[in-house]
C-alpha cells in the first residue's frame, strides 16, 4: 500500500479526441504530481484509441497507458470497471482522477468500492497536504450551500472526480515527450452484463453550452416554451447559446440537455444572462464560474443577487 506512486488521470474521448475535461485533469494532476515529486500518467481507454496517447503527452502526461479493446468501444460499467481495476492493480497509483461526467460519475464509485478504497465526487479543489502528503479533496455539499474537504487516509489509491472547468489545462505542447505503455484490458465479454441497444442524441443545435462565451439562461419565470424563442434570438444576436434551469427542462419547455447546474451542464462564459431564475444554489453550482452575470428578475430579493461568487458585475432590471 505504502508504495502506491503517481497521479493517474482517466482519460475520456469525445468524437475521437481527448475530452476537454481530460486536458483539465492533466493540468490539475500535473500540479499534484509535482507537489509529490511523482509521475503523472494518463489512461487512454477505448477501441482504436492508441493514437490519442500523443495528445495526452502534449497536455502534460509523463506516461500514457493505452488500453485498447473492442469491448471498450462504448462506456459500460462492467467492462470499464474491470479494465480499470486491472490497470490500477498493475500500476499501483497513489491518486486516480476522473471527470465528473456521465462516465466518471458511474465509474469512480463502483471502482473505488471494488478496490476497497474511497472516492470524493465532484471536487472543485485538490491539494496535497504538506505534512501527510495525502490528497485533500474539496467538494461542494448541500447543493452548493457549503464545502467539505475530505481525505482518504488508510487506503490507496485515493480517487476523486473533478467538476468540469474546475482546473486549468496546460498549453498543448506537441514537442513534449512521454512513454507509452500498452496494457491488455483483460475483459471477458461474458462478464459485461449490460448492453447498449440504442444511443439517442438530444443535442441542441448551435454553439455548445460548455463552449459558449455568452449564455442566456431562462428560468421558471419565463413561463413556457414560447419565450425561449426570444432567448434564442438574443443568443443568436450575441453569438451565444441558450441554457435553462431545471424547471423548464422538467416541464418539457426545452430539452434536458439545456439544464445548467449541479446535475446539469457546468458553464463558465464571459457573460451569463440569467433571465427569470431565482439563483438556487444547485443552479449556481453550474454557472458561478461565469465572469460576468447579468440577472433579470422582478424580485430584488432573489438569491441570484446575493450569492455572487466570482463574477465581477451583476445587474438588475425590472422587466
Amino acid at each position, binding site marked *: 500500500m505504502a508504495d502506491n506512486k503517481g497521479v493517474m488521470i482517466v482519460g475520456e474521448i469525445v468524437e475521437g479526441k481527448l475530452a476537454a475535461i481530460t486536458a483539465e485533469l492533466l493540468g490539475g494532476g500535473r500540479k499534484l504530481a509535482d507537489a509529490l515529486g511523482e509521475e503523472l500518467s494518463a489512461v487512454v481507454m477505448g477501441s482504436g484509441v492508441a493514437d490519442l496517447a500523443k495528445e495526452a503527452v502534449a497536455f502534460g502526461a509523463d506516461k500514457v497507458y493505452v488500453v485498447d479493446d473492442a469491448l471498450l468501444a462504448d462506456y459500460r460499467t462492467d467492462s470499464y470497471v474491470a479494465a480499470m481495476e486491472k490497470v490500477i492493480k498493475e500500476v499501483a497509483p497513489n491518486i486516480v482522477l476522473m471527470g465528473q461526467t456521465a462516465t466518471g460519475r458511474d465509474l469512480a464509485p463502483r471502482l473505488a468500492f471494488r478496490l476497497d478504497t474511497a472516492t470524493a465526487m465532484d471536487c472543485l479543489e485538490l491539494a496535497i497536504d504538506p505534512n501527510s502528503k495525502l490528497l485533500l479533496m474539496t467538494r461542494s455539499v448541500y447543493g452548493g*450551500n457549503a464545502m467539505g474537504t475530505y481525505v482518504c487516509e488508510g487506503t490507496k489509491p485515493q480517487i476523486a472526480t473533478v467538476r468540469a472547468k474546475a482546473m486549468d489545462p496546460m498549453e498543448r505542447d506537441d514537442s513534449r515527450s512521454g512513454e507509452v505503455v500498452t496494457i491488455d484490458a483483460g475483459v471477458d465479454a461474458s462478464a459485461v452484463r449490460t448492453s447498449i441497444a440504442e444511443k439517442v442524441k438530444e443535442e441542441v443545435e448551435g454553439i455548445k453550452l460548455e463552449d459558449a462565451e455568452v449564455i442566456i439562461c431562462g428560468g421558471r419565470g419565463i413561463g413556457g416554451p414560447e419565450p425561449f424563442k426570444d432567448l434564442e434570438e438574443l443568443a443568436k444576436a450575441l453569438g451565444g447559446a441558450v441554457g435553462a434551469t431545471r424547471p423548464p427542462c422538467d416541464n418539457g419547455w426545452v430539452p434536458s440537455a439545456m439544464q445548467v447546474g449541479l446535475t446539469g451542464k457546468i458553464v463558465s462564459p464571459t457573460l451569463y444572462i440569467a433571465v427569470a431564475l431565482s439563483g438556487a444554489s444547485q443552479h449556481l453550482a453550474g454557472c458561478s464560474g461565469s465572469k460576468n452575470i447579468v440577472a433579470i428578475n422582478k424580485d430584488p430579493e432573489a438569491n441570484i443577487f446575493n450569492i455572487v461568487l466570482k463574477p465581477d458585475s451583476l445587474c438588475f*432590471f425590472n422587466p
Partner: protein
Amino acid sequence: MPNMIVCVKQIPDPEAPAGSFRVDEAANAVVPAASVSQVVSPFDEQAVEAALRLKDEHGGTITAVSLGKDFVMDVIKKPLAMGSDELVLLQDPAFEGGDSRSTAYALAMAIKKIGDFDIVFCGRQAADWDAGQVGSGIAEFLGVPSVTVAKKVEWLDGKVKVERVVSDGYEVIEVSPPLVITVSNELGEPRYPKLKGIMAASKKQVPTWAAADIAADASQAGAAGARIKLLKVFQPVKEGKCEIIEGDSPEEAAAALALKLREVKLV
C-alpha cells in the same frame, strides 16, 4: 412481476432558501435553520415513482428502506403513502459516522434480509451531501449490475430496459435482473400521495432493524467501515460586485442595461 426495493433518505429540504444552511465548524456539520423541514430526498421520491410505475403496469411488490436517525414518521412514510407495500427503517448507533461505503454496506445487508429482488432503486444522489455513490456501492456489495442516472425504466418479461441520461442525450440499456438503478429527475414528477394512502401509511407498523438484525459485520458498518473522512466543512466567502440597474419602465431599464454592457464591452 418485479420485486422492487427503493432506498430513501430523510434529509433537510434541499430547496430551502439559500442562507438557511449554516456551518458549524467545530462540529464539522451543516446545520439547517429550524424553519427547514425534513423531506424524502427528491431523487429518492423519483426512485419510488419509477418503482410505482412498474407496479402499476406489471404488479409486484415495493419495499422502501431507509437508514438514519431522528426519523420524522410522517416524512419517511411518504413512500408508503405513495403506494409502496412495506417500509423498513435501519437505525443503530453502529450505523452512524459512516461514509457512502458503509451506508451502502448496511443497505445491502438489509436488502439481503428482505430477500429476493429484481430491482433496487436509488436516487442518483442524496440531496444533502450530493455524493452519488450509494447506489453503485449497493450493487457492488450485492454483486449485481448497476445502471446510473436513469430517466425511464421498462420491465419486459425478464429483461429491464433503462434510459440512462448522458450529456448529449440518453442511452437505451438492456440488462437482466437483478440489478440496481439510480434515478434522476428527468424521470418526471413523483405522484402526490392520495388521502387514502396517507391514512393507510400512518396506521402501518414499520419495523426498525439494528446492525444485529441484518447480520452486519461491525467492522464494515458506520464509522468503522468508512474509508473516507470529512476533515472540515466551511462556507466560501462571497465576493463580487452587484450593481442594480433601474429604470422607470422596463424599456428604460433595458436601455440602461444595454448601455452598461456596451460600456464594459461585454457586448
